[in-house]
């Protein structure tokens, strides 16, 4: 009987023991994650902070964008014992009115941030105040804010970082978001029994980030922006831009746009586009040098021949296309110099239409270069009909971005090659070593050196004695072409006679081209009543300013004889 009782008790003990073991297994193993989560919720509280992003440098190592450590100062008012002394101490350090702080301490109970973006140098003072007052519920969290020291200079190209997520929103910041790092990280605070944060337990801040080196030269960028401001001041256009690149490497040295914005306060701006990359426009007479080059290449034109420009109008497929002046007999150089539509059309009609369209595509028109977020491809959908070729040869009915124009004009400046545009030179690690380098690349040869050398003198004449002569430099030889395209006016359902796109594209110094420049304006206004709007007139002053200043900055010797 007694033996049986012992067995029963032992059996009960064993059952209880096994039940306990099973329960432990359930808690520790089967539902481990669930209970860990519950424990975390009970003991920890979290706060999100912005991580530092990689620095963006210009090509010479100057800072374009940096993350600056800042402090967030917070309090848990319900645990602050001496509210007056705390408010007074914080007011002295943070420069926030005492009454405001006292009001926060008296009216709020839980975790409250009293100041953001506080200078990190103040940290020792805050720690001393906390220690002196023994108020452990005055807290400090380190944060990072993105700072753009050059303000609006290159703003639309660099882009900005969201104040809410710490991630890139536009421009280079968006393009390189995966490499620059940043974003938010969760800091976990250990709570006491009452839910009061007492210490930082851990943070997931391990994130790989690189620094970026751009091809932009911030000084050239500033020169371009100053020149663009002049254009905007005198012409009040809807949009305008200047793009400068190195024709041999495709490296973009400056990209100035109007409208522009200051990335430090990006949220104040409604428009944050970069028209150099993101918009395409009809190019007008900028197309003419390409026509001439192709005609030279296919031996469809002799540079010494004369062409009758029909006194200012030509009929193609029953459509009358007019010139801006009544030109008579001109040779190909003068056709480019004076920008005769009739002359250019007559040369273009000698070309095979398909090959003409193919050449435009080879030059990079109608396709994205994929170097900037939201890049436009432009539109080259010309038909093979003579009237389409005629309009195409004077830059109507097809569109291009300023970037595409710059790359296409590089072909003339570098001996006939299409280069790949580059905006990001590379990525460097914290030791300054390149982990990725964007090597300049030649896409393909478009024209032979002989063809290019044959066309360039006509482009020099454009600046020396032609449509852009007002922009002539006294020191350097510039080659280029002006362009004026009529805008389509939806009000009259036809091409407008008062709204224009104006262009200049060219390169300098002609002796050894180092820079390609594109100047664009959308609907520039006349300087005086009755002024004829044209690419030359609008761009001339800007061109002159840019050429001389850039060449001086690069310590280049004039290639013209000084008087």
């Amino acid at each position, binding site marked *: 009987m007694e033996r049986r009782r012992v067995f029963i008790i032992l059996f009960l003990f064993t059952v209880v023991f096994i039940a306990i073991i099973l329960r432990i297994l359930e808690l520790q193993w089967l539902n481990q994650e669930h209970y860990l989560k519950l424990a975390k919720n009970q003991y920890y509280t979290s706060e999100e902070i912005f991580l530092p992003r990689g*620095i963006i440098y210009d090509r010479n190592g100057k800072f374009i964008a940096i993350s600056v*450590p800042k402090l967030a100062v917070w309090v848990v008012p319900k645990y602050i014992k001496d509210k007056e002394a705390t408010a007074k101490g914080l007011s002295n350090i943070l420069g926030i009115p005492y009454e405001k702080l006292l009001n926060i301490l008296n009216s709020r109970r839980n975790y409250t941030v009293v100041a953001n973006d506080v200078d990190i140098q103040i*940290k020792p003072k805050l720690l001393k105040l906390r220690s002196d007052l023994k108020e452990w519920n005055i807290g400090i969290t380190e944060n990072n804010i993105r700072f753009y020291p*050059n303000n609006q200079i290159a703003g639309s190209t660099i882009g900005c970082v969201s104040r809410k997520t710490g991630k890139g929103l536009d421009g280079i910041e968006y393009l390189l978001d995966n490499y620059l790092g940043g974003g938010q990280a969760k800091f976990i605070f250990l709570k006491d029994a009452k839910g009061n944060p007492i210490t930082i337990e851990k943070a997931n801040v391990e994130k790989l980030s690189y620094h970026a080196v751009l091809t932009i030269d911030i000084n050239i*960028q500033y020169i371009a922006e100053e020149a663009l401001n002049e254009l905007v001041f005198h012409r009040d256009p809807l949009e305008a831009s200047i793009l400068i690149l190195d024709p041999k490497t495709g490296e973009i040295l400056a990209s100035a746009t109007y409208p522009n914005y200051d990335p430090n306060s990006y949220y104040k701006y409604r428009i944050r586009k970069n028209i150099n990359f993101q918009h395409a426009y009809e190019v007008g007479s900028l197309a003419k040098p390409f026509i001439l080059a192709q005609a030279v290449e296919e031996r469809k034109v002799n540079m010494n021949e004369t062409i009758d420009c029909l006194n200012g109008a030509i009929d193609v497929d029953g459509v009358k296309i007019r010139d801006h002046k009544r030109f008579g007999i001109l040779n190909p150089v003068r056709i480019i110099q004076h920008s005769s539509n009739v002359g250019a059309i007559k040369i273009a009609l000698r070309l095979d239409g398909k090959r003409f369209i193919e050449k435009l595509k080879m030059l990079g028109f109608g396709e994205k270069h994929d170097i900037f977020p939201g890049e436009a491809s432009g539109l080259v959908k010309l038909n093979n009909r003579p009237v389409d070729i005629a309009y195409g040869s004077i830059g109507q009915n097809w569109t291009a971005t300023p970037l595409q124009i710059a790359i296409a004009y590089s072909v003339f400046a570098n001996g006939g090659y299409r280069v790949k545009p580059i905006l990001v030179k590379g990525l460097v690690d914290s030791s300054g070593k390149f982990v990725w380098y964007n090597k300049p690349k030649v896409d393909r040869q478009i024209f032979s050196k002989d063809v290019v050398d044959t066309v360039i003198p006509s482009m020099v004449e454009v600046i020396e004695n032609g449509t852009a002569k007002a922009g002539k430099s006294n020191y350097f030889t510039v080659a280029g072409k002006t362009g004026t395209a009529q805008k389509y006016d939806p009000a009259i359902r036809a091409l407008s006679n008062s709204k224009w796109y104006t262009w200049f594209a060219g390169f300098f110094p002609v002796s050894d081209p180092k820079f390609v420049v594109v100047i664009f304006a959308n609907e520039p206004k006349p300087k005086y009543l009755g002024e004829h709007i044209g690419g030359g007139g609008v761009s001339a002053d800007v061109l002159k300013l840019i050429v*001389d200043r850039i060449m001086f900055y690069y310590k280049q010797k*004039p290639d013209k004889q000084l008087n």
Partner: protein
Amino acid sequence: MYDNGIHKVAIADLLVAIKRYKVSILISTISLIGLISYNHYIFRVESELYNLNKQKSLLISENFQLKKKISEISNPERISSVAKQELGMINARYEQVKFIETK
């Protein structure tokens, strides 16, 4: 008298026990001293590491502040404005520039 006797017996027993387990006691004592010293060393290293990390963090922050200052000072707009407005400088004309030919 009786207590004194008990004490003597207890001490004698303790001595016997110490004698019997002297190796174990020695090993335990050495281990204990070693453990305490090791803990002390770890604490010292950790505290030093904490201070160095704190210092590093402050220096990194200071470095960023200095970078910010440098970048603000190098702003071409600021330099241009100081040059033109405060120092009365103007853009140079090429006629005023002498180029020295180098071999």
